[in-house]
Structure formats: C-alpha cells, structure tokens
C-alpha cells in the first residue's frame, strides 16, 4: 500500500518535471480523447447510454461514468460539464437513480427539465445523443435519507422530485421500516416525472403513501395547504425533505413551522434551477471571495477588482483595462457582465477578468 503510494508520488513528481503540469496524465488527453474518450484523465468522463423521455420537457439521461468515479448516496448532486459552442459549461443536477443501479450496473441517471432560456438544459435536450461524453464531478450534498430509519415526509414540486426519486428507490431496498409519505406537486397530469416508477413503488411498498397533486388543473391553482399536512399521520415525528421551486419551499417552510416542526427536522435542497434570466440589467449583489472567506455587498458601480480591493484583498492585476488577463479568476457561481463586451456570463463555474466584470446578482469568486 505504502509502496504503491510512494511509487505514484514519484511518478507524479516525474510527470511534473517532464510535462510541467499538476496532472501529467492529462498531457496525453488530446490523443487519448481520439482513441477512446473514456480514457481522458483531466476530468471523469461519462458516456450517454440511453435517453428516456419523461414528459414533454423532461428527459432522463442514463450515463456510464469511467470506473474511477467515486459513486454517490441517494439524494446527492453532481456537477456535469458539457461543451456548448466551444465553451465548457458546468451545471449541477441531482442524481435521479438509485445508488444500487450504480453498484450493480455502473450506471447513473440524471433527470433534467428544459428551462425557459436555459443554455445548458436546452442543449442537453437537443444535442446530447447516445454515445456522447460528458464530464462528471464527484457527488456532493447532504440531502440524505435518515439513519436509522425514521418516519419521513417528502414534499416535492416539479423537477424537484429527482433527488427524491433516488431516495425512494433506495429505501425499500434496505427494508426501510418507518412510514414514508410523498406529496408531489405538478402542474398537470402530463407533468409527472417518473410516474411509472412512483406507482410501482407505491404498489409494492406498503408503508409508502403517494399523493400527486395537480396545481393547475382548475381555474384557480391549488397549492400546498394546511389540510395536506394534516392528512399526514404523525407529522410531528417526521423528518421532512423539501425540494422544488422556491415558492413551494417557502410556503412549505411556513406551514411546517405552524405545525410545530422544528428547523432541525426540515431538510431542503436547491439545485438544478439556475436563476432564470433576470430580464433587467440589475447590477450588483453579494460578492463572496471564497478562498479569503470575505463577503461584501456591491452596488454595481464597481468592477470586482475594485470591490475586492475595497474589501482589503489584493488580487493580482496588471493593466486594469482588460487586456492582460493578469486578473483572471475562477467564478464558481453567479452571473457577471463584462464591461468591455457587454456580454453576460453563464451561471456556472468559469474564468472571468476581475477588472472588467461587474456582478449581476450574488456571485462567488475563487480568490
């Protein structure tokens, strides 16, 4: 074990000397990619094995990650990286399949809904075919099934069902003993994601109570109400899991507090839905400099370099006019506007020039 470790350390050192890079294996990637894209070392590749239509605007992509991928637990997310128009775009999605599928067949699934104006989700729907390769990050997130088993209430809205699908499939396999209730809100019967799976689970798993509620079937929308919660037996003793659009999450939090359920027992997760277009050009927002652990609010009248300096940081810079790229930094989330080009960046992880970028809403910077 130790020998192997030292050996790989020596190899790594040698690789650095010879190829001038932290990840020497990636030196060969441009050629490996041609031979077999699954051999690429710079990121973990995953091949699309199947594409399933869930609803008119939702597809499930079945992926086979390269063997070295670390696996995941039900309820977690991954970052995927797709090259859209020559640009690598990273987005977070929850894993909708059960970890058992991964363990047994080496497959994972992502269930992705088209977002209006969404650059990546639409591209995935329109261009991702069987055989294509995506980059895959490690799974993360703590939206995890309680252990030991406790009564659970899931409240899901729309595509917020995806991490819960993974959990619901995992629980019976481990003989989950406590009662489980799912309140699933969708606009119309056509919008139910994973309906067959859910019905099959409910048929075979006696402690699962499945309630699908259509919000937009009638003239007046029907949202989560107190009555819905009152139908859940022993609600006070339940661990509650929330996933869905912000409106539903806020409403659910309110109602749950009224029921006397404590914050500690409520687990919620935001994912997939990257902020839809703000429409207007509202500039400014909370700027988080992750490495320095500094957070400042900004008004949109200063570029990020100035914001950082005003906050006492000293990022690297040169020309301060957008030509030398000395100030380039990784933005890990949020959107910025490039003052030089007037262009709006994507929402995911990418490189930006601090001296010409202005935040548009909250952002975090790896500096």
């Amino acid at each position, binding site marked *: 074990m130790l020998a192997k470790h030292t050996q790989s350390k020596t190899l790594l050192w*040698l690789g*650095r*000397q*010879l190829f*001038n*890079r932290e990840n020497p294996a*990636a*030196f*060969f*990637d*441009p*050629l490996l990619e*041609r031979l077999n894209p699954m051999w690429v070392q*710079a990121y973990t590749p995953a091949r699309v094995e199947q594409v399933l239509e869930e609803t008119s605007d939702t597809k499930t992509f079945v992926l086979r990650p390269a063997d070295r991928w670390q696996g995941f637990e039900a309820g977690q997310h991954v970052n995927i990286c797709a*090259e859209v*128009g*020559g*640009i*690598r*775009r*990273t987005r977070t999605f929850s894993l909708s399949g059960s970890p058992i599928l991964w363990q047994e067949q080496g497959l994972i699934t992502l269930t992705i809904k088209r977002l209006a104006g969404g650059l990546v989700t639409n591209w995935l729907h329109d261009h991702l075919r069987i055989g294509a390769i995506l980059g895959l990050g490690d799974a993360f997130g703590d939206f995890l099934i309680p252990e030991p088993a406790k009564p659970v209430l899931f409240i899901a809205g729309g595509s917020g069902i995806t991490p819960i699908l993974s959990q619901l499939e995992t629980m019976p396999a481990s003989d989950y003993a406590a009662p489980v209730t799912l309140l699933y809100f969708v606009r119309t019967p056509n919008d139910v994601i994973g309906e067959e799976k859910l019905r099959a689970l409910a048929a075979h798993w006696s402690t699962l109570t499945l309630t699908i509620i259509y919000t937009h079937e009638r003239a007046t929308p029907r949202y989560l109400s107190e009555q819905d919660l009152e139908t859940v037996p022993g609600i006070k003793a339940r661990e509650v899991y929330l996933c869905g659009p912000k409106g539903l999450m806020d409403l659910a939090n309110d109602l749950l507090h009224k029921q006397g359920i404590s914050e500690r027992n409520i687990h919620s997760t935001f994912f997939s839905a990257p902020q839809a277009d703000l429409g207007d050009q509202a500039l400014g927002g909370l700027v988080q400099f992750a490495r320095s652990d500094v957070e400042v609010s900004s008004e949109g009248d200063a570029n990020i370099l100035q914001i950082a300096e005003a906050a006492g940081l000293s990022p690297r810079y*040169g*020309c301060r*006019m957008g*030509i*030398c*790229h*000395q100030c*380039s*930094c990784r933005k890990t989330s949020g959107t910025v506007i490039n003052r030089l*080009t007037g*262009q709006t960046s994507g929402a995911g*992880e*990418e*490189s930006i*020039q601090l001296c010409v970028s202005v935040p548009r809403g909250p952002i975090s910077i790896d500096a």
Partner: protein
Amino acid sequence: MKKMTEAQFSELEKDLNAIRDEVVADLGERDARYIRRIVRLHRTLEISGRAMMPFGIIPPVFIAATATLGIAKIIENMEIGHNVMHGQYDWMNDPGLHSQTYEWDTVCDGDSWRRTHNYEHHTYTNIIGKDRDYGYALLRLSDDEKWQPLHSLQFINYILLSVFFQWGVGLHELESERIRRGEIRLRDKLPFLRAFFRKGGRQAFKDYVFFPLVTLPVAPVVLAGNAGANLIRNLWSSTVIFCGHFTQDAETFSEAECEGESKGHWYLRQLTGSSNFTGGKWVHLLSGHLSYQVEHHVFPDLPAHRYPEISEKVQSVCRNHDIQYNTGSFARQYGTVLKRIIAYSLPDRVRSGLLSAHAGQAT
C-alpha cells in the same frame, strides 16, 4: 508619434473596438476545434520526436527527430503557450487552456512571463524606459539610449541572445541592468530566482538528464538531438520576436508622450510600434501568428488564428486614419532588424555618416 486630436483618437478606438466586438461575438466551436487540433498536432510531434531520437544514431533519423522535436517545441511555445497565456482561449473555460495556469515548455516561468510580457510589454509597448522588451535591456536599438563603447559589440550579444534565447527570456525579470545600476538588490529578486531555478531546472533535467538517461546506450545522441531541438526553437522564436518590434519602421515612444493616454492613444501605439511579416500558412502557424504582430498587439487576447481574417479590416482602419501599417516579406523585415542592430552599435556620428553616404549612393 503621429499627432492626432482627441476626436480622432476616439474615432480610432471606436473603429478598432468594432472589429474586436465582431470577433468576440463569433467566438465558438470553430476556435475550440482549431486550438484542440493544434494541441493534438503538438502532442503527436513531441511524442514522435522523442520516440525517434534514440534511433538518431542513423544520421537522417537524427535530423528528422531533432527537427520534429524542434518544431513541436516551436508550436507549443508560439501557437499554444504564448497565445493561451494571453487569455485567448480563457472563454472556453477549459482548465488545460487557461491563461493563469498554463505552463509552457520553455525555461521562462509562466508567472514571470505573465508579469513581464502580458502586463509590462503589452501595456507599455515600445515605451523606452518602461517596456523592457525593447532591446531586452541588452541591445541599443534607438537614439533614446546614449551610445557607449560596449554597444559596438552588440551584434555578438545579439547572436548569444538568440542562441540562448529561452534562458534570456527566463532571466528577463531579474532586471540585471537595474541591479548593476544599484536601483534594486539581488535579494529583492529571490522569489523570482527561486521560480527561475525551479523551472529552468525542470527544463534542463528533462532534455539533458532524463531522456538521455533512459536511453543510456545512445545518450550522447539524445542529448545532442534535444539540444539541437532547443536551439532550433531558440533561433526561430527570437527571430520572430525581433521582427515584431525592431524593424526599421517600428516606432518607439517616450514616457512623457504616453502619460495618461487614452485607449485610442494606446491603440495607435500598438499599431505603429509593431510590425508584421508575410508568408505562407506554415510561417504563420510556426510564428504563433506573431507574423501578425500588429493585430496581436491591438487585440492580444483574441485567438491568434483569427488575425489573418481581420488583417484586411485593421489595414483599412489604418488607411482611413492615415496610420502606417508596417509589413513586408520575412526576409525584408529581418534584414531591417539586422541593420538596426548593427547601425545602433555604432556611435551616432559614424552611423549618420554611413547612412547619408548610403542614401547618396541610392540617389
């Protein structure tokens, strides 16, 4: 420097920005495919060169292996390294092609290059006293510097600089001339020197220790071939770079005239301080498109393979503003560089005497 009014400067700025915006709006798959293809080409050449080298005991193979490795290094340094480190492909969001993390196959440490080249040279292009790339603080190339007897030997300096170019570039940030003048102390440069020795050590280890060692029976051949490849790269890249700013018509500027300059003024300086040379597709590729030095200096962070496409537009902007667009054949431009190096090695009196005699002959 050409006299222009503020209105003319802002007109110039607008015209050039328009060219830039058009390219930026069009960046995409084509550019990604291009740079990936070049990276693949580099890997193929480098791996073949290294693989062939031990068989260099056969003379034609030696030549082929050395040339292949030399060309690999040239492509990596010029079309990939230099351009990636300018941020030309940052928008692709590919960590392997990112300006801040790329480390190239030459002695000069990436971070040092980013400071001295991307920032200093590209911001203060050809401003005597601020752009240390002008003559590399080693050669006297304009009247702005006073003649000294040592300058008469500068052609030898030039040859040495070309042969050991990667080491010269690597040491550039040492600012030895300022240390000599006592403006800074060697101690101030310790962090730089540490990085220099680390990177230089790596480069020397790879070419002069590791690869000869793993092919021990033919080590001298591999050593010679690797040295040859480095030499080819050094001579070519120094020549390309000298042709970019030291030709006859490339202008220099004084600090005073660039004080508080506008963007339009900066553009004018880039246009008139740089010079192109013409050639075939391969010449452009091997020079990292620095054969389009003018375009590169005006738009240092646009993907270089776009320069040939926009050159016509830049030329027409120059025509409209009556700005000289400096270009010519490689031989002609290089000839004027050599002439400049020799001419300025002479005391001013001798030089003007010679030049007028020369002019007299021509008429």
